[in-house]
């Protein structure tokens, strides 16, 4: 996973720079800037965030035997679970900060509020929480493959949903709107601003996302306490 940790930010920075060149080009109209910003969010949420979360997961996922070894050596199942959680959060934080800064710089020129930044950060930690729960699958390889499937497909499904709704000029409301905020908060917020087709408020949507994010970590810690392992 080491190359992924180097290549991912390198590609991200390269593409960001290229997009920013267009973005800051003189005479660039505001609606084009908004579209470019949407492209940035797509890239971030559909590719870079999941890839980075999976590289972090490779860091903390363990075989069942290794988990028991750690629990035996440290004399505590709980300490192992907490250490794994903190390890992943610490791994993800520099990336989350980088994404937040870039989003702030770009979104401020679109006159977008702080919601989009909150959405980017929440999304990173939400998917980290989901990946952590999936790490309880016994095989490390199965964990990474299942996580790749879940973490890539979930945000993509939101983009596909927007495409379909956009085609039919339909409004997104109720549970579906809340789910899109949970699965891809920043892209949903951007969609809401550009199309005015999401009836759920950003504050409610992001609160739901934050709630699910916290729940994921609680689920992981509780599930870790109950997981059965045969040595």
């Amino acid at each position, binding site marked *: 996973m080491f190359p992924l940790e180097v290549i991912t930010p390198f590609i991200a920075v390269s593409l960001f720079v290229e997009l920013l060149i267009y973005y800051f080009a003189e005479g660039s109209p505001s609606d084009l800037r908004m579209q470019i910003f949407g492209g940035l969010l797509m890239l971030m949420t559909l590719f870079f965030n999941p890839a980075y979360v999976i590289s972090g997961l490779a860091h903390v996922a363990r075989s069942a035997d290794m988990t*028991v070894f750690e629990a*035996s050596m*440290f004399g505590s199942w709980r300490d192992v679970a907490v250490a794994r959680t903190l390890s992943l959060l610490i791994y993800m934080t520099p990336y989350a900060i980088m994404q937040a800064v870039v989003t702030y710089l770009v979104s401020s020129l679109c006159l977008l509020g702080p919601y989009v930044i909150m959405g980017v950060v929440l999304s990173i930690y939400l998917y980290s929480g989901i990946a952590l729960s999936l790490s309880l699958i016994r095989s490390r390889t199965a964990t990474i493959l299942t996580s790749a499937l879940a973490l890539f497909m979930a945000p993509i499904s939101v983009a596909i949903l927007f495409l379909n709704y956009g085609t039919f000029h339909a409004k997104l409301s109720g549970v579906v709107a809340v789910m899109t905020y949970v699965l891809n908060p920043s892209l949903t917020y951007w969609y809401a601003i550009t199309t005015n087709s999401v009836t759920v408020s950003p504050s409610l949507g992001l609160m739901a996302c934050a709630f699910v994010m916290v729940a994921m970590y609680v689920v992981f810690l509780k599930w870790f306490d109950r997981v059965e392992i045969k040595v």
Partner: protein
Amino acid sequence: MMLQAVNLTKRFGRVVALRNVSFEADAGRVAIIGQNGSGKSTLLSIMFGALRPTEGVLRVDGYEPYKLRERASKDMSIVFERPTFDISVRVRDVYEVLSGYGDSDCLSFFWEGLGVRDFRNTALPDLSSGEKQLVQLMQAFCRESRLKILDEPFSHVDVRHVGLIGDYILRRGFSVVFTTHVPEEAEWLGEYFVMLRDGEVVWHGGLSDLEREGVYEVYLRGEPPEGVEVLAKFGYVAIVRSDYDELVELVRRGRVRGFRRLGVRRYF
């Protein structure tokens, strides 16, 4: 240490790994004996709290470890037979972590005495099976815990190291529950024995409960000698009904290598 199982049953789908296992052992060293697939590892996993029984209970010093997992992990440490280590932690990293809170005498015994230091720079996944077992034993013995649970602890260890480790267990007075399919290992270290076959207890008790006059284990040289009543045969070991003097004569004539009183092999 008090170990108590009451109608302990564990199913994995349609496979019954343990069936109505019941015994009570009030001893410092308990040997769980049985062939491959007899349920030994499942019993140890339940004991450590890593598995929950389907039915029945298992108590270690009065509590059920799978219900109080955190307490169990503090009280017990575990070694398993064939671990899959999948992170690139080196042996010296394990040693350094244990040095922070472990038993220094024990660490010295493993590090210098058993030569774990010699492969300190090797990552756990790259260790040989014997080296992995030594690292696991180091972690289990040197982290201060009241009970050491050992699944086939000597199966991959050099013969000379087996002797050193066994003597260390006896000298330090560790409470251990260990599994083995080697009768001699069980009788050397065990004070109480639980014999499993196909997930069921076929016998449990102390060594004195095994004694039976006129039945011996004989170490063969080739075929069993004529005129000796063979009750069962396990490769080079035969269980025979005979008398002491006759067996001494057979040893003197070189017809057998040696003999001893029948032990746990009786239940194989």
